[in-house]
């Protein structure tokens, strides 16, 4: 029992750090570039992705023994599309302002490679609790990455965090401009790689 619990925890932590969907696996880059202009956007889209990922993982894990192997992929797509529609409708109804800020991206969660990949690699082979933790970790990892990007871009671009003015001036307007998303993601990826390289070197000697 103890071992199993540890595995759950491991799965969860891996999703956030070691297998971070954006910085490590480099999947679902579109929203990371497109709407990471503020921390709030990161939290909102992150929540939506977390919801879809957890729900889809659980659904597939529950019915994994009944899925005909030949129609595996269509079933995944259908499941994801259903949950995306649900979250899309809910967000549009209850938080219209935030929904507008995210534009098309909520509906585009349906095409995020990360979700289909987790279903194919993990949820269709593992029982419910494990799939849940895996999905939860992946979703949180996505959210964490989006928030980090949002933090950097919002702070440097508009001198604000979560909409509160902290710097009182705008250091580099370039960072909130649409095209800066690519550069920020590139720099962040390089930065994380660099940390890893330094860490490995220290460990060696």
């Amino acid at each position, binding site marked *: 029992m103890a071992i199993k619990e540890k595995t759950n925890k491991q799965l969860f932590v891996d999703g956030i750090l070691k297998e971070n969907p954006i910085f490590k696996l480099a999947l679902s880059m579109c929203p990371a570039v497109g709407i990471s202009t503020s921390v709030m956007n990161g939290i909102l889209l992150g929540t939506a992705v977390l919801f879809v990922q957890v729900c889809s993982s659980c659904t597939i894990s529950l019915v994994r023994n009944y899925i005909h192997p030949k129609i595996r992929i269509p079933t995944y797509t259908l499941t994801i599309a259903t949950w995306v529609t649900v979250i899309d409708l809910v967000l549009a109804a209850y938080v219209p302002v935030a929904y507008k800020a995210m534009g098309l991206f909520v509906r585009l969660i349906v095409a995020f490679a990360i979700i289909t990949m987790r279903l194919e690699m993990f949820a269709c082979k593992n029982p419910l609790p494990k799939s849940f933790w895996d999905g939860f970790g992946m979703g949180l990892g996505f959210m964490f990455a989006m928030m980090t990007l949002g933090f950097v871009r919002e702070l440097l671009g508009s001198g604000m965090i979560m909409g509160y003015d902290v710097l009182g001036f705008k250091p580099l307007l370039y960072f909130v401009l649409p095209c800066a*998303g690519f550069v920020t993601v590139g720099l962040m990826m390089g930065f994380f790689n660099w940390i890893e390289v330094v860490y490995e070197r220290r460990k060696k000697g």
Partner: protein
Amino acid sequence: MKSIKSYHLLVGVLLIAALFLTGCEGAGHKFVKKTEFKDSDKIVLTFAGPVDEVWATNVANFSCYEKPDPDIVLTIKEAVLSPEKTKLTLIFEAPLNTGEAHILSTTNIMSEGQDMGAALLTVKKLYFGVLMTIFLGAALIKNFVFTKYLGLCVFFGCSQKRSTAIGMGMVFTIVIAFAATMAWALYQFVLKPYQLTFLNIVVFIGLVSLSVQGVDTILRKINPALFKAFGVYLVLVIANCIAIAVPLILADNEYTGWESFSLALGAGIGFLIALFLMACVREKLELAKVPPSFQGLPIAFVTAGLFALAFLGFSGLSIY
């Protein structure tokens, strides 16, 4: 060779579309050959023969309004007739909203003493021009990769080599044009009338998968060689979020059939351009000395950022 063939196909389709669309234009009166907007505050009328100067330069003979606002008559400041007396330029007091169709009515047209009857003319942007604007908008100004940040997974995955980039871009263009046109029909004739628009996401993603399967089957039967070259990219189309974004955009904006087609074509060509440009740079980058922590994806992202900055320069571009 094979790729040249498909180029021909594309160009052919475009030409047919162009012929069809330009053939439809007419001004609405037999003596008036052409009506068009010029600058922001002028309408130019071209007549089939010379008209009387006294009649033409009297602004009281003309009245003009925007199609949705028939009660608000726009003031014409001046009417200028060209020396050969066939071209009349109406100058308006305020800038015109050229996005709307304008209705221009005249009193009886006088040509060399003859009465040619009154005319009720529609002045609007050429429909082909509207389509071209949508096409160019999707391909360059609002390039899906560099200004809307969609389809990045496939974009970074397939831009290592030029040959891969071209193959992927072409296959994608064909599939998306096919899928978007079907999505438009389905949305206009089934989903909207029966108020099932909340099923948009499911239906569109199903449609994209279906088009991929369809193109796959057709290509396999008709041209196995072409299939061998491009078949591998077909599966990747489903993973491209542009393929699902285009149907959603055309549903949101209530585009017509032709407009949807040009949007899809523009999106596809834009994707092809982006892939090709990126592949060219990345082939060169292989030879460059990049810091170890930036090798691979990070430097590709920074490069894409520079491209995106350059593509900002297209905004404000308008030809028609």
